[in-house]
Every structure is written in C-alpha cells, then in structure tokens.
C-alpha cells in the first residue's frame, strides 16, 4: 500500500460518499454539498494520476493539475448557480421540495 494507492482509495471513497449523500439526503442544499464531495473526489483522482506522471525534473504531470485548477473554479460557479436556483425556488414556493406537485398546476406562490 503506497501513498498513491492510499489517495486513490480516498478519492474513490469520497465519490461513493458523495453519491450516497446525493441520493439519500432529502434537503437540496445538502444534495449540492454531496455533489461537491463527488467533484472533489474526482479531482483527487486527477491528482493521483498527475503524481504518477512525475519525471524530467517535474514532481507531477502539470496537465492534470491545470485541469483540476480549472475544474475547481468551474465547479464553484456551478454550485453558485445551483444555490441561486434553490433560493429562487424557495422565494417562489416557500418550500424547497423537489417532489412533483399533486395536480398539474405549478406550485402555489
């Protein structure tokens, strides 16, 4: 069990935890949180891949590292958009339920 395998397992575990949270926790804000867990787990896997590509005077392959930096920023902007959508849903309907309304009409304001 070397260091890279350890972090690879950590990344996979984080993706699994985030997936469970996405499915099992009902509040949408917590679902957004779990989605961020999945994202950071995937980025950690990128980091392991980058570290494996070390050599030629560089301690890690810089291309996956650059992808991760871009990814973290874009994931944050997606989270901001999701939170804005959620707050607007709350302002419109007073609740944050993702369940479909019983009748065909849109939920009451």
């Amino acid at each position, binding site marked *: *069990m070397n*260091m890279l395998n*350890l*972090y690879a*397992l*950590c*990344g*996979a*575990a*984080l*993706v*699994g*935890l*985030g*997936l*469970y949270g996405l*499915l*099992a*926790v*009902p*509040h949408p*804000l*917590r679902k957004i*949180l779990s989605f*961020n867990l999945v994202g*950071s787990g995937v*980025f*950690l*896997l990128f*980091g*392991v891949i980058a*570290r*494996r*590509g*070390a*050599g030629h005077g*560089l301690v*890690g*392959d*810089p*291309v996956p*590292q*650059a*992808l991760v*930096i*871009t990814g*973290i*920023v*874009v994931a*944050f902007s997606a*989270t*901001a958009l999701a*939170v*804005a*959508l959620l*707050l*607007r849903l709350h302002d419109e309907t007073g609740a*944050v*339920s993702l*369940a479909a309304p019983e009748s065909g009409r849109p939920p009451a304001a």
Partner: protein
Amino acid sequence: MTMALVLDASLVLLIVGIATWTVVVRDAFPAIAGYAVYGLLLALAWVRLAAVDAALTEAAIGGGLTGVLLIRAAVRLRSTEAAARAESPGPLFRLFAALLAAGFAALLAIVILGLPDPAPTLTPEVAENMAVTGLGNAVTAVLLAFRAIDTLLEAVVLVFALIAVWTLTPDDYWGGRPGPKYATDPDGLLAYLGRLLPPLGIVVAIYVFWIGADLPGGKFQAGTLLAAMWLLTIIAGLQDPPPVSRRWLRGLLVLGTVVFVAIGFAGWPLAGYFLAYPESHAKPLILVIEAASMVSIAVTLGLLVVGPPERSNGS
C-alpha cells in the same frame, strides 16, 4: 510502514471521516461547517500529492468561498429543514443507495489501482518546451501557454454562470443591487476587520499572482483572495455591492476575456496562429493576460457569491 505513510493514512482517515460526518449529520449548518474543514484537509492532501497550485485553489475556493456561499443559503433556508427531513427516504431506499454508492466507489478504485505502469504522461513535452515561455511554474505554463484555449473558455464559462445567476432576478429588481443592505456598527469589530484585513489581503493577492510565474500561485488563487476581501468589506457594511446594470462593473467582468481574445488574435500576424505568443514577448504577454483575468475572476467570483439582485436600482 514509514512515518510519511502514517501521516498520509491519518490524513486520509480524517478526510473520509469528516466527509462521512458531513453526509450523515442531521442539520445543514454543521454539515457546511464540516465541509469547510474538509476543504482545508483536502488542501493538505493536495500538498502531499505535490500539487501546491491545486492545494491553494482548493483551500481558497473549496474551503473558503463555497463555505460562505452555502452558509448564506443555509441561513435563508433554515425554515425548510424540518419539512425536508419529513421527505427522508425509507431504510430500503437508503440501503439501495448505499450499495449503489459502494459499488461505484469500488469500481472506481479497481480502475484507478489498475492504471498502467509506467504511467503515460505529458511531462517530457512540457519540460522540453517550458523554457520558451520564460515561466518557471509548469502549471502556469500549461494554463496560459500550452492549453491557453481551455483557460480562455473557462473565463467565458464563469461569465456565463454569472449571467445565468442574474437571470433569476425577479422583474422588479432587474439591474439593481445584489444582496441585502448590511447595516453594521461603524465602530464595531466587523468594521474594524473590514478596514484592517483588505489592504493586507490585496498585497498577499498581488504577491500570489506575481510569484505564480515561477512558484506555485497564479491568477485563480489571487483572484479568489481579492474576491474574498471584497466580500469582507460588503459583509462588514463598509461597501454596498454596485447595481449590476453599471457599465464599469460589466466592463470589469469581461476585461479578462477581451484582453485574452485580443492577444490571441494578435498572435495571428505576430507568431503564426491564434493564441501563439511571439517568442521574445511570451512572458510579458502572459503576465498582461493574467493581470486582466485576475481582476475579472475576482469580480465574477464575488458577484457569484452575493447572488442575483435583491434591491431595485433606486435604493
């Protein structure tokens, strides 16, 4: 079992432990606090993986800005937590979700533990061609020279996300000021912090931007620091976020992309094709692009956190 492995194992246990706690804890507020701590521990994991630029970005954005964003939302959604908890799925569904998640994680683990050895890598190409760019930091060279088109498109994606957030404005408040008016005691502690910290934060941000050419750092981390300082002055009540219809604000938002595209098109006559840098001027051009992008990123990230306008233009 070396000491370094013990350190890594403890760190991984802490990270997975606090992630588990974030998922299973009952209320939203502790979960978000746990997520902020998780972001900082993850930054440590990035340092252990020798990716310091990613560690800085994760600590700033993952731990810091995302935490602020989610806390503000959690405060506004506090009344909905009980209703949401009533919709909690039954034990059978949770078992199914746990099995699905565990299966997927196991599949990922098998794939990544079975990656080919020696690992395929682009390090030789980067190491050979880095000297031409004049940069010492390989990640900055990749971001702004070898894969500059990705960074350009990412800046555009950030602006798109902000526009999407602004489309959620109620009609009455279109073009108005985002967020509530923070009324704070001008002699209070938050105002003191809002006066003391931003000048220091701006100096640190400019340092991180400048040093990113040769050492870990760069415009993303610096832009996040600037955004955080701006948010601090807003939350301390020392500044009101500007109305989103202001031309100078919109100009600042697109400044980074415009400069990037302009230098890209200038690459056609000067060096052969779009986003090519003439050899002797590569580093100054890259620094100009980075400086303009840093300002745009700071304004965009700050506006993404404060959200869509909530006050009409007159106020």
